[in-house]
């Protein structure tokens, strides 16, 4: 069954851009162009995710979000906003959204986030996971032990969290911004290639010479941990 996504966006161009991209990636899309209509659809609860514009005619995006959460509907919500400052993001996240993306954004960033939310939802439904693995790489979340092909790998605490996040999202692209938010808990742009250097350090530890690379760079978007090249 294809997953349904609700896009609440009053700007037709942006709405088309998002809907077209989602359909190309195998989702089906419902659209609403104002707050009331969006809330009416969202309360149905059958969506895999809601993409909600922050500023809407009729009912403001944060008000819609508040009403959705008040009605005990826990569909993942990604807020889209032209208000890009860090404290606006924090406000959006505090209001109960699962993610916050600043307009204008690259579609690949939105897609990576929608998919990450799907996986998070699925993971929550499963039993508690104590080990994560990708190919010959394994991570024990209880003993904090990481091995590749039986050889132990020593990781710094932050490297451990970075690898854990990549493992939980293996096979999918994660963007630099997602890493910064999830692993470091910052919502600002640290500039230059701070994250890239952390990744290349981690890569040196887990992908030794002669072994098939697991940590891949997806040019222009971010990174992906997977067995296949």
């Amino acid at each position, binding site marked *: 069954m294809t997953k349904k996504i609700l896009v609440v966006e009053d700007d037709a161009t942006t709405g088309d851009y998002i809907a077209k991209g989602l359909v190309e990636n195998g989702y089906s899309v419902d659209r609403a162009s104002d707050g009331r209509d969006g809330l009416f659809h969202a309360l149905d609860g059958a969506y895999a995710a809601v993409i909600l514009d922050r500023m809407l005619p009729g009912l403001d995006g944060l008000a819609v979000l508040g009403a959705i959460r008040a009605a005990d509907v826990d569909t993942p919500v990604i807020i889209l906003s*032209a208000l*890009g*400052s*860090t*404290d606006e*993001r*924090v*406000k959006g996240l505090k209001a109960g959204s699962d993610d916050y993306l*600043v*307009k*204008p*954004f*690259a*579609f*690949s960033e939105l897609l990576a986030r929608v998919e990450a939310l799907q996986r998070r939802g699925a993971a929550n439904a499963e039993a508690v996971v104590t080990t994560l693995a990708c190919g010959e790489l394994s991570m024990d979340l209880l003993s904090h032990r990481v091995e590749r092909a039986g050889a132990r790998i020593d990781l710094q605490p*932050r490297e451990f969290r970075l690898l854990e996040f990549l493992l939980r999202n293996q096979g999918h692209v994660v963007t630099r911004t997602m890493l910064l938010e999830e692993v*470091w808990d*910052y*919502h*600002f*742009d*640290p*500039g*230059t*290639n*701070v994250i890239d*250097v*952390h990744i*290349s*350090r981690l890569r040196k530890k887990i992908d030794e010479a002669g072994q098939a690379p697991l940590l891949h760079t997806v*040019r*222009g*978007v971010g990174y992906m941990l997977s067995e296949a090249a």
Partner: protein
Amino acid sequence: LSRIDWPRLKRSTTARFVLLYLALSLAGALPLLFVTYQQADRISHDHFVAQIANRKANLLLTYRTGGIPAVEQGIRDRISSGAAAQAALLLIDPAGRRMAGNVSAWPPTVRGATDWTEMRLYRDGHRDAELFALSATEFRSGHRLLIGTVIEDRTRMREGLLLALLGALVLAIPIGLAGSYVLVGFMNRRIRAVGDVAARIAAGDLSRRVETGGTRDPFDRLGDSLNAMLARIETLVEELRLITDALAHDLRSPLTRIRASLEKAMEQLSEEPQRQAIDAVSHEVEGMLRMLAGTLEISRAEAGMGRENFAWFDLGALTKDLCEMYQPLAEEKGVHVAAESPDGLSLFGNRELVGQAVSNLIDNALKYAAGGGSIRIGADESDGSVRLRVADRGVGIPAGRREEALRKYRRLDQARGTEGSGLGLALARAVARLHGGDLVLEDNEPGLSVVIVFPRAPSAETPADA
């Protein structure tokens, strides 16, 4: 008293005002005292002159009726009756011999007839010389008459008067000082009220206004003009901010579309040279988007937005976190980064914005001080303020160019070759000011030390419900 800062006191307007007021009040009092002295002196003078004139008139009347012998007798009578106790009398014949009187000899300095002269004379029966006002008369026969009255009293009166006036002057100094202190204190209070508002405005709170009482006095009118000026500035700044924000905002959409198109193009290209070219363009577009985001962030902070998310957070932990975040990048550049902050140093503010400011400062230090050995990040608390420092060992910024370095988009010559938007320091300063603090550039000898000074306690302006 040794703790008073004299050079500073000398420069202080308050001190100058007090002294000027004192000088003016003394200058006003002096002519008054002078005139008082003159008048009092003249009254006593007239009194003595009248006495002598009276005595002289009586003796001359005696001369007209009885000639020299009558005058001689008159003098003897006056002396023996005691009527001349306060007088000096002397009659001499043309040869200069004393005929009658209580003064032994004619004073040699008095020659012809004089009207009024002051002189010390010895009288019979008096051990000390006394001061007299004298009048001399010469008769046609060659006899001469000296009539005088003691004016020791007048001298004493003069001295007393001078003493009293000096006393008044001495008394006027503390009274003048106290008066001017009160007056200056009153003016200072009113001026300080205006100054406080100006300071709040300098800190970015353009909505502040001076309180005016509607009395139309000069202070009120100063306040009114200031308020009118502020309203105008606020409108202009708001307009400017709207324009730059709108511009930055509108530029982001086409740039993002360019980035999306580049992404698509990248997917379809397989040859490496083309992919590299596209990559380079993407990189530039990223840089432009970052610059626009920085601009918007600065104007928000300058407009005072972000205060509603103020909360207590651990500043020490934040510096250590960011130090760890930049460690790998720094090591790659051969720079050592270390954070030294006490545990549990908390700050009331916006964690995200402060984090961004610090990360910009570290980023700058890495760019401009690459190969400079080490970067030290530290926070400490003293005297009610929290100082957050990012210090490098690079080339630094000469003292004369530091203000320039803080301006938006401004990049000093030495930085032109490197990548960057020129917004890092400007954003850090805007964040510092949003928190009621400021950013200072200091010499790290060698290198640059950027210090953000935060007030420790939340200021009264911070909304309590934040």
